[in-house]
């Protein structure tokens, strides 16, 4: 029962990805982080990779809304739209958009947490570290147990 939770990070900005990873590590989280730069490859991994969350192992998704090939909300609705293990995978939307409408829409689509990336780096780092703390305590549904 000790499948380590994989963190799937869908983030087109490599700088952001690097900063997020750094701060998560600083928070003491050592889980594997899978980084995808675009929506297509991320969805492929999520839905059909043999080690992806649909078929194997619990996961947690960090999702940016501004992606080059598709909108993050499309990915979110794909993840939350189908019945199955993938739907139960927690999704943390982590993006620069702090538009109220967008936030509401994400929660409506089934996002679990919505975090705005603060431009202020200290605040950003703080937010990510807190996310790390959060990640260390949340329980992720067990794929095997559920199946």
């Amino acid at each position, binding site marked *: 029962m000790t499948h380590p939770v994989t963190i799937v990070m869908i983030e087109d900005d490599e700088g*952001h990805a690097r900063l997020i990873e750094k701060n998560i590590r600083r928070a003491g989280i050592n889980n594997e982080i899978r980084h995808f730069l675009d929506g297509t490859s991320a969805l492929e991994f999520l839905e059909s990779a043999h080690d992806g969350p649909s078929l194997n192992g619990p996961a947690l998704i960090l999702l940016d809304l*501004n992606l080059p090939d598709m909108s993050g909300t499309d990915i979110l609705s794909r993840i939350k739209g189908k019945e199955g293990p993938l739907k139960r995978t927690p999704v943390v939307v982590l993006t*620069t*958009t702090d538009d109220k409408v967008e936030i509401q829409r994400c929660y409506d689509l089934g996002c679990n947490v919505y975090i705005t990336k603060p*431009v*202020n*780096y*200290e605040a*950003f*780092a703080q937010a990510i570290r807190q996310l790390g703390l959060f990640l260390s305590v949340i329980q992720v549904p067990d794929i095997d147990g559920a199946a």
Partner: protein
Amino acid sequence: MTITDRLFNRLVLGAVVIGFLSLLAAGGLIAWSIQRNQDYNLAVDHTYQVRTAVYQYRVLAERAEAARRGYLLKPDDRYRQVFAETADALPRAFDQLVDLTRDNPRQQERLDDLRPLAAMQSALMRQSAGLVQRGRQIAAVGVFRNDNNLETMQSMRTILSQISAEEDQLLKDRTARQERGVAFLKWSLGLTMLLLLAVAGGSVFVIFQYTRDLNRSRRDLFKLNASLESAVEDRTVDLRRANDEIQRFAYIVSHDLRSPLVNIMGFTSELEAATKPLEELVTRIEAETPDLLTDEARDAVRTDLPEAAGFIRASTQKMDRLINAILRLSRDGRRVLAPEPLNMHGLVAGIAASLRHRTDEIGATLTIEPLPDLVSDRVAMEQILSNLIENATKYLKPGRPGEITVRGRMDGIRALYEVQDNGRGIDPKDHDRIFDLFRRSGVQDQPGEGIGLAHVRALAYRLGGVISCESELDQGATFRLSLPAVLLPERAAE
């Protein structure tokens, strides 16, 4: 109107005028013709009268002669009486004849010829009648035998026949003329009738034509109006779309600009964090083996790196504020306005209360004069007025107690508000500039990005208003805001 149209109109007008003039002429002709016929009738009548008079005279003369002869044959007093009556009537009948033919010199001539004969005959008749009366019948008969009364009578008859013949000829002429006049009148009437028909027909045709044209123009105008309305509608939709596009553009740009900023800030912090171990290393080397340490390395770690990081950080923070300002403007532009009745005094008093802390601190007084209420968007009005009042408190003249006045009045269907201060004022050349985004004026001793007034102007425009500034350096400033007293609700974007 084209040239041919104008020409056509002139032709039509000309035709109508000519038609009516002809009608008038025809009317005159008929009137004249009737008048002439009347004259002819009178003339014919006159001829008849003359003929009657001639006839009467002739009868009288013959009767007188007959009576005389009867009296000569038989001195009966009844003959004498008839003779006396007819002989008395003769001069009157003659005079009447003269009167009636006064217009005809030929007849007068004949009457002149007749006059001595008549007088002679009359004298003879009276003479023989007198002799008979006195009982001298034989003498009277003798006289009768010897006077040439037969010739005289014959001459008189001839003359009278001539007169009658002349009158008959006149009658024939005059009757012929009368008939010609009547015929002429008939023709004139017929012609006038035709003319009348032509003018009436022409007028009806022209009126019909004009009515049809008028109807067509009205239909065209109606269509044009309808299309104009839809054109305005289209333009409005286009404008709204363009406006939405700009708003979306501002929104997307500001968001996408934020993304790299996160990196710049983040990695600057990482750089600063990385500088710390280096700094410690430099300190240690400085203490332990100063020979290894170059001045450049020390300066780089101690001065250049922190300085660069500091500038990057400050610039990034500024950029973040600017982007946030654009974002806020774009959001305000996208916000749907909700007009509601506003108690302006209450609204300004609320702003004053929120600024009391600051006004007390700098010793400024804020006076609110009576303000007209209006129907508009509360949030927008609050932002506009609080920006203006806050600016007034920010840019006071040091050493002069601040006096800020908010006043207003109605100007037709618009409400006018003024925020006046006695502060340091604004150079007139900057009056337009200060409303531009990120532009400021005067000494830069106050925090701010040059956003407030740009925001105010954008909001004022959205509320259908305008804002202007009146100021001189050191003379204070007055910001004047003119808004529609009633803001109509926006139609939802398509």
